[in-house]
């Protein structure tokens, strides 16, 4: 059952991920954004299979919820009608395929030649309690720094969105 679920979610993640970058039917960014939402939801399924329940929830809430709404909002704000008429250059596609294929070959060959000892799934639960304890004891300083980072990002966004940008 778990194996079948893994294959289903992995297949869905990769197919939707492919449709984000190269949809044969539409070049509209809104379609890409919608498929990105589906990719993220299937990834959350993989997180559940890995017993990372809290992260699966955060993935859906923060990514599929907040971040993608921001994306869609900006896409709707900008008028991107002209984008669909643009041609994709064959040279760019060829170069991209070659370079990405080379990187993929490096990744996969290193994966093949690495002895992966830990194939048994140990009993590790990534629930809210366990992660929260770790977050507020051992990782308290990074947690506070991240809050400062969010504040800085917020101030930056307000500054950037001003009417006349100096």
């Amino acid at each position, binding site marked *: 059952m778990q194996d079948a679920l893994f294959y289903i979610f992995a297949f869905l993640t*990769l197919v939707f991920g492919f449709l*984000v970058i190269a949809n044969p039917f539409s070049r509209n960014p809104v379609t890409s954004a919608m498929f990105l939402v589906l990719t993220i939801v299937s990834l959350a399924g993989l997180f559940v299979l890995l017993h990372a329940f809290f992260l699966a929830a955060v993935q859906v809430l923060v990514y599929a919820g907040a971040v993608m709404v921001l994306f869609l909002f900006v896409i709707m704000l900008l008028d991107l009608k002209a984008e669909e008429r643009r041609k994709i250059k064959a040279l760019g596609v060829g170069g991209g395929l070659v370079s990405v294929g080379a990187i993929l070959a490096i990744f996969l060959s290193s994966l093949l030649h690495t002895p992966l000892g830990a194939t048994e799934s140990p009993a590790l639960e*990534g629930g809210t309690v366990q992660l929260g304890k770790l977050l507020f004891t051992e990782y308290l300083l990074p947690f506070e720094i991240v809050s400062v980072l969010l504040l800085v990002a917020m101030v930056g966004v307000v500054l*950037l969105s001003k009417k006349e940008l100096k």
Partner: protein
Amino acid sequence: MTIGLEHYLVVSVLLFCLGLLGVIVRRNLLVIYMSLELMLNAANLALVTFSRFTNNLDGQVFVFFVITVAAAEVSVGLALIVALYRKRQTAHVEDLTTLKL
């Protein structure tokens, strides 16, 4: 055959390569940004997988931070894109050649 570490890592690698391909091939700034998100998600999957198979919760905390930083990054990046669009009326990388010699 039971699902092991390498299965998840292969999915992560493939997703990362898809994101990289999107960044290289697509010319629309917003789609490039979405491909970047794909790459971040692939890295998150690898981290969660290692956390699960090495019996160590630190990886999941790291993913938590990555998600937070990604949210901040997306908000700033989209604000930059909007500011750029206001000035130049385009979100297409081939129209942004001011720094080209």
